[in-house]
């Protein structure tokens, strides 16, 4: 299939796209009827539970399950060696490439446990209390090993090794000693020494961000049924039913078409539900038990064994001319990967300087394994971390130069035709327009009160397209059904219906969008990377266009005119052949006689969408710091973003507001805290403090529409960008409020108070 569409002619007016209709799944979700992962029940289902390691790093000496098996009501017990052996193999599952052996080992450990909470065994029993009792009867003998949770400690030459066979890749010469540094990557341009030599001003800083969790409110949940004939069914809450199918098939060595995965409604993901934890385990238990098995994680398990994103150390050195021209940048990124390689340091490195034109730079990134949970994608993975360092340093540079922070960024801004720091040449970007939107916003000039500070930061994300399938079927009464394969996390059913309605000329209420299971629609990559409205929307639009072409052909046949004499206008065929003077044929009229013109009306499009335009965000934050306690309140927040064209502006605003607030939480409150034994000390929402309603002001979302010419309606991904700037926007606001540059997140009251005292 071709993957690019021409834009509608200039001057075309859109009826549906850009309006704010009620979402098609709204009533189900406000009445409690929507079925999420844990809400699904199957007759005869067993309760599955997982035994987890109490140690951060240990060798598994033995696992004795005999007593547990003997307990009445216990129907199955599975340990890591019950999974087929896996070769180390990269599998494209949606989040770039993932190593299937690592994913299997993360679902159930084999020789070693690599973090506290690592799954060791699983049971299925007839009740929750019997399953709990069975877990307590499993006897695991561990040989406890020294552990390491801190990223720089893990990089040290004498650090405890998670894997004695791992040698750092990405170095010019092969190292002779194993290391926890899985890989090193570098991006460079120009000559760093020359660049700094020509600088009038240099700023240098070392920044730290903690590991944080995606914090979706719905814990992971699934029901799995392994039939005696080998046919498997899985109901699960995830960001991609096809991802679940692919991973389960590989891990359990089952033919993928024998697994049918039905997507439950998903209670938030933010990247954290782009992999499997419990689904292969539930299938293995179901196979052994001969009955369906349901596994629902507790919040404690979610914190200890899923997510988070990397904790990191970011070192930034910038050199600039006295007029503000940045001439050199040296950025070092050290990202925790958790138990297995795969931190988002690559994206962190590529986005770090993406907003800037800098002639000389070196960005060095380290992917470092350590004894914490295997990191999972989290909204613009890697980018908020490097942006915190770079945007804090740019703010410090602005202060040192006495320059307005927007003026400094405009002076160094990338434009169309500039080469991005990660290589390619930018086209059709809206960065300068977004900076100007904030410069011209009343917030930027509003006076500040006592103990208040204002921070600005920018952010970048690539956005992606990828493979999607969608079908548009016309119903006999002239309404339509749109079928796609992407879980609806934040309103994508609405955008799919709107794009189809726009093309078909139907009121959006007459288009019913469905998210189908893996057997009912062709493959789609998962919902993530801000790809669904862009890529799946492109498939939906093309399918609707194909339907319209078919409808025109049918009208021509009914009227006995040439097909080029038929035009599709507002949901009806219009005859352009003046001699025939036929009254318009509505969609319903054509659909009602479809049997006479070739049978059912519908089209399916499968494509690999290209042309996802990159997005830029500019955030402005006012804080007030209580000098007595160090408590920081966000008192005003404005977030501007180039969004291409907003299909449903309310849900685009929602992405911007929600992303900003997740970033505010990262800046002010959230962090994984480990004790001396490497155990997480705050695995609950009381101690892992996410923002609540009373912490926040309204979040003013400013949508800057610079259309993406590669999408039929000009759309681009919008969900990732808004979490990139807030860490630094908040940090810069606090730094300016108290007159001390803040380097470490979160900006908790004791930390801010200590900075005030030291400053």
């Amino acid at each position, binding site marked *: 299939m071709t993957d690019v569409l021409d834009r509608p002619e200039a001057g075309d007016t859109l009826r549906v796209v850009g309006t704010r209709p009620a979402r098609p799944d709204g009533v189900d979700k406000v009445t409690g009827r929507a079925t999420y992962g*844990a809400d699904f029940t199957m007759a005869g289902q067993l309760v599955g539970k997982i035994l987890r390691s109490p140690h951060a790093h240990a060798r598994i000496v033995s696992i004795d399950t005999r007593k547990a098996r003997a307990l009445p009501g216990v129907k199955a017990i599975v340990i890591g060696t019950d999974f087929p052996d896996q070769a180390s193999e990269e599998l494209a599952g949606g989040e770039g490439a993932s190593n299937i052996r690592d994913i299997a080992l993360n679902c159930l450990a084999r020789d070693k446990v690599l973090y506290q909470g690592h799954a060791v065994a699983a049971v299925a029993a007839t009740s929750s209390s019997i399953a709990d009792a069975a877990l307590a009867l499993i006897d695991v003998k561990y040989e406890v090993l020294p552990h390491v949770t801190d990223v720089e400690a893990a990089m040290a030459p004498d650090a405890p090794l998670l894997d004695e066979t791992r040698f750092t890749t990405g170095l010019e010469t092969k190292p002779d000693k194993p290391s926890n540094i899985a890989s090193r990557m570098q991006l460079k341009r120009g000559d760093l020494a020359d660049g700094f030599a020509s600088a009038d001003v240099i700023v240098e800083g070392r920044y730290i961000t903690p590991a944080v969790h995606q914090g979706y*409110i719905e814990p992971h949940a699934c029901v799995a049924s392994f039939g005696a004939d080998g046919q498997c069914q899985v109901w699960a809450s995830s960001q991609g039913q096809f991802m679940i199918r692919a991973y389960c098939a590989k891990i359990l060595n089952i033919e993928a078409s024998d697994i049918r995965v039905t997507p439950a409604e998903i*209670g938030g993901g933010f990247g954290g539900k782009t992999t499997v934890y419990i689904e292969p385990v539930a299938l293995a238990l179901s196979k052994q038990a001969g009955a369906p098995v349901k596994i629902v994680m507790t919040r404690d398990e979610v914190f200890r064994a899923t997510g988070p994103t990397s904790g990191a150390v970011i070192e930034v050195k910038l050199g600039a001319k006295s007029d503000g021209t940045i001439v050199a940048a040296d950025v070092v990124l050290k990202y925790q990967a958790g138990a297995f390689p795969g931190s988002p340091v690559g994206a962190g490195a590529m986005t770090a300087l993406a907003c800037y034109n800098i002639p000389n730079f070196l960005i060095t990134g380290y992917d470092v394994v350590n004894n914490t949970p295997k990191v999972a994608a989290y909204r613009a993975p890697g980018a908020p971390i490097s942006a915190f360092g770079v945007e804090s340093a740019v703010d410090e540079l602005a202060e040192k130069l006495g320059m307005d922070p927007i003026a400094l960024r405009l002076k160094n801004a990338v434009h169309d035709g500039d080469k991005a720091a990660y290589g390619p040449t930018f086209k059709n970007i809206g960065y300068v327009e977004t900076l100007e939107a904030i410069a011209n916003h009343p917030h930027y000039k509003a006076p500040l009160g006592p103990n208040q500070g204002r921070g600005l930061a920018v952010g970048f994300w690539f956005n992606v397209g990828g493979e999607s399938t969608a079908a548009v079927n016309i119903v006999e009464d002239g309404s339509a059904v749109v079928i796609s394969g992407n879980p609806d996390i934040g309103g994508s059913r609405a955008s799919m219906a709107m794009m189809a309605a726009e093309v078909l000329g139907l009121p959006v209420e007459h288009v019913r969008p469905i998210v189908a299971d893996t057997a009912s629609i062709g493959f789609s990559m998962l919902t993530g990377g801000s790809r669904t409205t862009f890529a799946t929307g492109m498939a939906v639009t093309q399918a609707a266009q194909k339907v319209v072409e078919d409808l025109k052909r049918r009208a021509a046949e009914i009227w006995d005119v040439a097909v080029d004499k038929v035009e599709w206008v507002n949901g009806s065929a219009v005859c352009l052949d003046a001699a025939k003077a036929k009254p318009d044929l509505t969609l319903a009229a054509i659909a009602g006689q479809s049997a006479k013109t070739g049978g059912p009306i519908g089209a399916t499009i499968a494509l690999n969408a290209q042309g996802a335009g990159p997005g830029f965000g500019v955030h402005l934050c006012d804080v007030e710091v209580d000098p007595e306690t160090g408590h920081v309140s966000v008192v005003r927040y404005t977030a501007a973003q180039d969004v291409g064209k907003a299909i*449903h502006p309310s849900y685009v605003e929602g992405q911007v507001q929600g992303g900003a607030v997740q970033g505010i939480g990262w800046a002010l409150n959230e962090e994984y805290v480990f004790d001396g034994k490497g155990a997480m000390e705050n695995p609950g929402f009381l101690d892992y403090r996410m923002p609540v*309603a009373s912490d926040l002001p309204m979040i003013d979302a400013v949508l800057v529409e610079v259309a993406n010419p590669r999408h039929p309606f000009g759309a681009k991904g919008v969900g990732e960008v808004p979490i990139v700037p807030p860490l630094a926007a908040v940090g810069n606001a606090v730094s300016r409020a108290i007159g001390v540059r803040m380097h470490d997140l979160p900006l908790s009251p004791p930390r801010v108070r200590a900075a005030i005292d030291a400053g």
Partner: protein
Amino acid sequence: MKQHVTATVNGDPVEFLSDPGMTLLDALRDELGLTGSKEGCGSGDCGACSVVVDGRLVCSCLMLAAEAEGHRIETIEGMAEGSVLHPLQRKFIEHAALQCGFCTPGLLVAAKALLDSNPDPSETEVRYWLAGNLCRCTGYDKVIRAVMDAGAEMRQARVA
């Protein structure tokens, strides 16, 4: 030893058998099939399981099912009158105050409890009242607007 419990849920009499450790949330979801109330944490921190017991807003994950004996419980399933949505439910849809929708039942139950006791809350009052209901998707902006707007509409309806 299971205990026989009788209570009123959304105006209707119910009875079920409760394990000693069963929470009201478990009873609603597993015994009565009312899965609109969600478990996000099981520790009373997220509010996704909010229900009203004898007029008081509680986290149903923190209350034992056996304690429901003889009490009147209202859940999200009882909020609409038949097929007519409550103004809060309508306003949540209208303002796009939900994204994934998982926290929505709890937020709606909590917001209704607020408006039942304080028909004209300030934005600050709404924010503090809903501080026990975590939402990770929306940043609360549209949630607060929806609650304020629903309150305004309900006040107007009362005058008219």
